[in-house]
């Protein structure tokens, strides 16, 4: 075989990959993997970039297999870190029930408030947030939910089952671990199932987006609008930093970096962060949070920028576009028109 002779100082990548694989195999025995092992691995990775890239490549493949894994009970090791399942605390609903008239008043006042409406089903709690509002709540099992702007949701959490409906809008979930009672979020026809996890769901017309901060999330996509969810055997399991979009064509999954995931979730702190996003897309995002609406015209839509803004600070964004990019601004009632000419 006429192999091209290689320069003498080249790395033997085949051997390096073998060593990286051996490290990965050792690390997969989570119970025996020690701090010394971690330090030894770090030292080996630091020795040569070839070691590091071989490791990253194998890790990448190894992690993808996680998509196949169904949700299962947490291993005994993980369970040791989990506090005992909190006993169910019944809520005193009567205190919170608002009359229909009361609801109308709040709407007129335009307050960024959350209220729990009188619900036709006594076992469901309803939640609604106004434009620009953000509200944290604690469910009966101790799970914490943060609702974003313009969101409508329902919750039914009992000792026997935990169900949440995200009818419209966006919510971040920090679900109390309970391997015996999966927490299910219904968004349109899509069904998201977790055991104890931190993730967000965003539902708008015909489209569901799921972002995972920690833990595992199973996503079952409705095959047709209004139809039943797909059989569980082809439902992917999403892991940390995965971002999935389910819409008519199917489900697309992207692995993001830790930074990108946090950027997508910065709304929890009232902040919008963009990385190289078009002005058109930025405007769409801002418009979710504000009564005054940005309208972007023509080529101005293609301007790309990165930055961080408080979600209410339309004026700040507009000022930046005018002074930094020469964008023309024209205010007309509740609409702010942005254009380049």
């Amino acid at each position, binding site marked *: 075989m*006429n*192999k*091209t*002779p*290689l*320069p003498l100082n*080249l*790395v033997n*990548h*085949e051997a*390096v*990959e*073998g060593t990286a*694989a*051996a490290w*990965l*195999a*050792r690390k*997969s*025995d*989570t*119970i*025996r993997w020690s701090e010394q092992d971690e330090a030894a691995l770090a030292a080996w990775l630091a020795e040569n*970039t*070839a070691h*590091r*890239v071989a490791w*990253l*490549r*194998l*890790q*990448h*493949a190894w992690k*993808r*297999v996680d*998509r*196949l*894994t*169904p949700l*299962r009970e947490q*291993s005994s090791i993980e369970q040791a870190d989990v506090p005992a399942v909190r006993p169910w605390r019944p809520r005193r609903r009567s205190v919170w029930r608002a009359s229909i008239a009361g609801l109308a008043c709040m709407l007129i006042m335009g307050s960024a408030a959350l209220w729990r409406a009188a619900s036709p089903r006594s076992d469901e709690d309803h939640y609604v947030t106004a434009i620009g509002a953000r509200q944290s709540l604690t469910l009966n099992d101790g799970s914490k939910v943060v609702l974003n702007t313009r969101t409508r949701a329902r919750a039914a959490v009992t000792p026997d089952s935990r169900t949440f409906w995200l009818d419209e809008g966006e919510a971040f979930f920090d679900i109390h671990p309970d391997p015996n009672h999966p927490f299910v979020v219904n968004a349109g026809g899509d069904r998201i199932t977790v055991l104890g996890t931190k993730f967000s769901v965003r539902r708008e017309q015909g489209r569901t987006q799921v972002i995972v901060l920690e833990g595992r999330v199973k*996503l079952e*996509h409705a095959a047709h609008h209004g139809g039943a969810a797909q059989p569980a055997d*082809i*439902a992917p399991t999403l892991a940390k930093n995965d971002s*999935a979009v389910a819409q008519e064509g*199917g489900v*697309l*999954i*992207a*692995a993001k*970096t*830790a*930074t*990108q995931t946090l950027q997508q979730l910065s709304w929890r702190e009232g902040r919008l962060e963009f990385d190289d996003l078009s002005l058109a897309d930025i405007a769409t995002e801002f418009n979710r949070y504000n009564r005054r609406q940005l309208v972007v015209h023509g080529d101005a839509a293609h301007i790309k920028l*990165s*930055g*961080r803004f*408080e979600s209410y600070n339309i004026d700040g964004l507009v000022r*930046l576009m005018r002074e930094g990019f020469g964008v023309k601004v024209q205010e007309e009632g509740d609409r702010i028109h942005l254009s380049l000419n």
Partner: protein
Amino acid sequence: MSTLNTIDQKKLHIPPGLPLAIDVVSDWFSTEVLPLEPALMRLLRRHWRHPEDLPDLRQEVYVRVYESVRQDGFPLSTSAFVFVCARNLMVDRARRAQVVSFDVLADLEELPEQPGTDFTPERLTDAKQELQLLELALDELSPRCREVILLCKIEGLTHKQISDRLGIAEGTIEKQITVGVRSLAERLCAQGVTAAVAWVRRMGRREREQ
């Protein structure tokens, strides 16, 4: 220093603190570069005459990309950057090879500066195809190897538990995973979804023709 309501310094092309932190480069490498592997392998296969060199070449490209980004920051276009690294590496190697054939070198030097439209990352994967690919990749493994990996990954068993369950030594388990993860990487990273699905279609067609 508050950076709220400002444009990111980095995007104004003021160079960030260099060299970049390893975490940052590693993250970027995993999410932006590795999805290019199917395209990269197609490129290498097309232009390098010796298929047994390909895994080596690929890793060399990765090393160059990683070190370059660590020192100089992120490229504006990841796919263009990886393409150029691969091109330059092949030209370098061909020049240094003891047996130089002029047509090989000429071919390589005629590679364009920019990649074509088919040099794109396989980043967004259709969930159904991804699952098909995963099953295909697992099918490739020997039954014992597959068993060990599934018990480790899906059941979350420790090696001791797997050893007890299957009646094999723990050392063997480590070996099986070592072999298995390399095979998985070949199928998942190097070949990717498109190739695998095409392969499945060809198999299906062949079966129907028989």
